[in-house]
C-alpha cells in the first residue's frame, strides 16, 4: 500500500473534511470513493484485467494533484479555434464558459460545472455520479471520485436535437507531474440527439512538452435516455510521455443508439475501460476505434458490452498499428445475459505489427448465457503485405511512402466512420503525422 498511501495522503490534505463544510454531498461522494479506493488499491499484475498492463510502473512519480489556479493565456487546440461548431472548453477539468461557444438559449441544453449542478440538484446528480455499470468498477474510478471537486455537466433536455456537433476539450495546466482527474457527466433526456466530441490534445499553456509528465485519470459518464441518439467521439493526442487511464461508462435506456469512435494517437500509457450497458430493448451500440502505438507507447483497450435485455445489437471494430517496442492490448468482453435473447453482437480487432519487438495481446471474451443470439468475433494480428508493398514500389513509390499509404489505408475504414467531416479530416491529418514518425523497419527489412 506504499504507493496508495501517497495518494490517500494527498487526498486528505486537499479535501480535509470541514474545510468546505457546506458542500456535504461532495464530501460524502469523496468519502465513498476513498473508501473503495483504499479497499481495492491499485491493480496488481496478477489481476486478470491488468495482466498485460502493469499500471504501477506508471504511477511511481511524485505527483502533484492541483493544477495552476490562474491559467493566464490559454492556447486552444487548433480544431477548437477553427471550428464553427459548439465548443465547451475546460481548464484542468473545470468548465470555462468564457472560453466556450455554447448553443443558444433556443436549444434546451444546459452546460454547467458539476459543482453547480451538484449544488442545484444534489440528489439527482449524485445519483448519476454514483452509478456504475455492473462489472465496470475499478480503482481508478474510485480514485477519481475520491478527488472529486468539480467537473463538467451537460444536460440535453427531452426532444432536443443539437443542430451542430459539440466539442469538449480539457486543457491541462499544472506542474510537470500533474495527476489530473477530470470528470464529465452527460445526461441525454428522452428522444434527444447530439454529436459530442471529447478532444484531449497537446495544446495548452506552454506547448507540447508540457504534457510529458501528466497522468490523467478521466471518467466520463453518459446516460442515454429512451429513444435518444448520441454520436460520440474521443480523440486522445496529448503527446509523447503523457499517461491516461480513462473510464467511460455508458448507460442506455430502451430504443437508444449510442456510438463511440475512440482514436488514440500518442502518450506513454493509454488504458481505456469502455463500458456499455444497453439496459432496455432495441438498443444499438457501436464501438469503433484505432490506436497508433509508436515507440515507447503502451495502449490497452478494455471493452465491456453487457447485454442484459433482448433485441439489442452491438458492433465493435478496433484496429491497431504497433511499431518498434510498443505494446498494445485489446480485451473485448461481450456478456449476453440469459434474458438477452435476439442479441446480435459482432466484434472485430485487427492489428498490424511493424517490428519484431512490438507486442499485441488480443483477447475476445464472449460470455453467452442466452440461446437465441448471434455473436461473432474475429481477431487478427499480422504485418503489412509484402506483395502490396511491392506493387506500390513497382510503380515508383518509395518504401516509406508505400508503407505510410498502406498503413493509412489500414485505418481508413475506421476514420470513415467519423461522421463529422471537419473532425475526420483533422484525425486523418493526425494519423499522417503519427505514421510519419514511425521509422522502424518492417519485419521484412523493407525489401
Amino acid at each position, binding site marked *: 500500500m506504499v504507493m496508495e498511501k501517497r495518494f490517500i495522503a494527498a487526498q486528505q490534505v486537499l479535501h480535509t473534511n470541514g474545510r468546505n463544510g457546506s458542500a456535504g454531498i461532495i464530501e460524502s461522494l469523496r468519502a465513498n470513493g476513498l473508501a473503495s479506493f483504499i479497499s481495492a488499491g491499485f491493480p496488481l499484475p496478477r489481476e486478470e484485467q491488468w495482466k498485460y498492463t502493469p499500471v504501477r510502473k506508471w504511477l511511481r512519480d511524485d505527483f502533484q494533484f492541483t493544477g495552476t489556479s490562474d491559467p493566464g493565456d490559454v492556447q486552444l487546440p487548433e480544431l477548437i479555434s477553427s471550428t464553427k461548431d459548439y465548443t465547451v472548453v475546460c481548464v484542468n477539468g473545470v468548465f470555462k464558459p468564457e472560453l466556450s461557444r455554447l448553443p443558444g438559449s433556443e436549444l434546451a441544453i444546459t452546460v454547467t460545472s458539476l459543482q453547480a449542478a451538484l449544488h442545484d440538484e444534489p440528489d439527482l446528480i449524485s445519483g448519476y455520479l454514483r452509478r456504475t455499470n455492473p462489472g465496470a468498477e475499478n480503482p481508478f474510478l474510485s480514485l477519481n471520485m475520491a478527488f472529486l471537486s468539480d467537473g463538467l455537466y451537460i444536460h440535453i433536455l427531452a426532444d432536443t436535437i443539437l443542430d451542430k456537433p459539440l466539442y469538449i476539450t480539457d486543457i491541462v495546466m499544472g506542474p510537470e507531474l500533474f495527476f489530473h482527474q477530470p470528470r464529465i457527466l452527460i445526461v441525454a433526456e428522452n428522444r434527444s440527439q447530439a454529436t459530442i466530441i471529447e478532444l484531449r490534445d497537446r495544446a495548452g499553456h506552454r506547448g507540447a512538452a508540457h504534457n510529458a509528465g501528466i497522468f490523467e485519470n478521466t471518467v466520463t459518464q453518459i446516460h442515454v435516455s429512451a429513444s435518444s441518439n448520441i454520436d460520440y467521439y474521443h480523440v486522445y493526442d496529448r503527446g509523447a510521455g503523457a499517461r491516461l487511464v480513462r473510464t467511460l461508462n455508458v448507460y442506455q435506456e430502451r430504443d437508444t443508439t449510442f456510438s463511440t469512435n475512440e482514436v488514440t494517437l500518442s502518450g506513454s500509457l493509454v488504458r481505456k475501460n469502455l463500458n456499455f450497458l444497453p439496459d432496455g430493448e432495441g438498443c444499438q451500440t457501436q464501438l469503433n476505434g484505432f490506436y497508433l502505438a509508436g515507440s515507447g507507447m503502451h495502449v490497452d483497450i478494455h471493452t465491456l458490452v453487457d447485454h442484459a435485455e433482448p433485441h439489442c445489437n452491438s458492433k465493435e471494430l478496433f484496429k491497431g498499428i504497433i511499431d518498434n517496442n510498443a505494446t498494445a492490448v485489446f480485451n473485448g468482453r461481450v456478456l449476453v445475459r440469459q434474458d438477452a435473447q435476439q442479441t446480435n453482437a459482432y466484434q472485430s480487432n485487427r492489428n498490424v505489427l511493424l517490428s519484431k519487438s512490438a507486442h499485441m495481446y488480443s483477447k475476445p471474451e464472449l460470455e453467452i448465457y442466452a440461446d437465441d443470439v448471434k455473436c461473432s468475433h474475429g481477431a487478427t494480428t499480422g504485418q503489412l*503485405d*509484402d*506483395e*502490396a508493398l*511491392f*506493387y*506500390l*514500389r*513497382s*510503380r*515508383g*513509390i*518509395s*518504401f516509406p*511512402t*508505400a508503407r505510410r*499509404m*498502406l498503413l*493509412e*489505408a*489500414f485505418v*481508413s*475504414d475506421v476514420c470513415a466512420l467519423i461522421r463529422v467531416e471537419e473532425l475526420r479530416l483533422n484525425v486523418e491529418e493526425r494519423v499522417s503525422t503519427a505514421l510519419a514518425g514511425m521509422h522502424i523497419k518492417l519485419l*521484412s527489412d523493407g*525489401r
Partner: protein
Amino acid sequence: MLEITDLHVCVEDGGTEILKGLSLSVKAGEVHAIMGPNGSGKSTLASVLAGRSGYEVTSGSVVYKGVDLFELEADERAREGIFLAFQYPVELPGVSMSNFLRQAVNSVRKHRGEDKLSAMEFLKMMKDRAALVGLDPSLKQRAVNEGFSGGEKKRNEIFQLAMLEPTLAILDETDSGLDIDALRIVSEGVNGLRRPDRSFLIITHYQRLLNHITPDFVHVLVDGRIVQSGSKDLALKLEEQGYDWLKEESVESVN
C-alpha cells in the same frame, strides 16, 4: 536498353534454380515476346527484372540503360522506367486509384526532373489514359483493384503503364484470364503505347496475344534458358506444334 547475360536465379535461401543461364538483348523500341511452357521461368524473369523479393541472383548480369539493374531497389527501377504489368494485380483496400496514381506519377516525374502535375492536369491525364483501355473514369474514386473484375484488373495494369510512360514495359501474362474482347482492348491499348524509345517484354503462354501485338522477336524459354529465338512466325509454329519438340532439342543440346 536491356542486356541480360548468362543469368542464373534461384528461389531465395538456397532453393531451386529457376533461370539457368538466360541471355537476352533488347534494344530501344523493340517488342520481344517470351513464350514457354508452364514452369519454364517466364514469370521469374519478370519478377527479377522488376525487383520482387524472394529470388537470389547467383550469377550473370542485367544491364539496363548502362546501369547494373541489381544495384537498384524496386521503386528506383520503376522511376528509371521499368514497368511490370502484374499477372495477379494486387488489391489495395483503402488506397484510392487517384491517390495511388498521383503518388506514382509524381514520384516518377520528380525523378525525371519534371514538375508535379496540377490537380487539373492530373485528372485530365487520368481521363485520357483510362479511355485508352476503356476503363470507366469513375474508377478514380475506387480502391486500387478492389472489386475489379479480372478483365478490369488487367486493363488497369495497362492504364497504369500509360500513366507512368516507362521505357521498358514487362507484361507478365497480361492475356491470361481475358476474354476475346478484353484481349483486343488490352492489345490495342498496348499498340497505342508503342514508341521508338519504349521497349516491351511480353510474357505469354499462348500465341493469341501476338495476333494483336506483333512482336519483333519471339523467344522460347524452356527450363530456365532461351532455347530458340525467331520472328513472329515462331509463335505460330509453337501454337501448332506445342513446346515438346523444343524441349527435346533442349535436352539434346545439353547432352
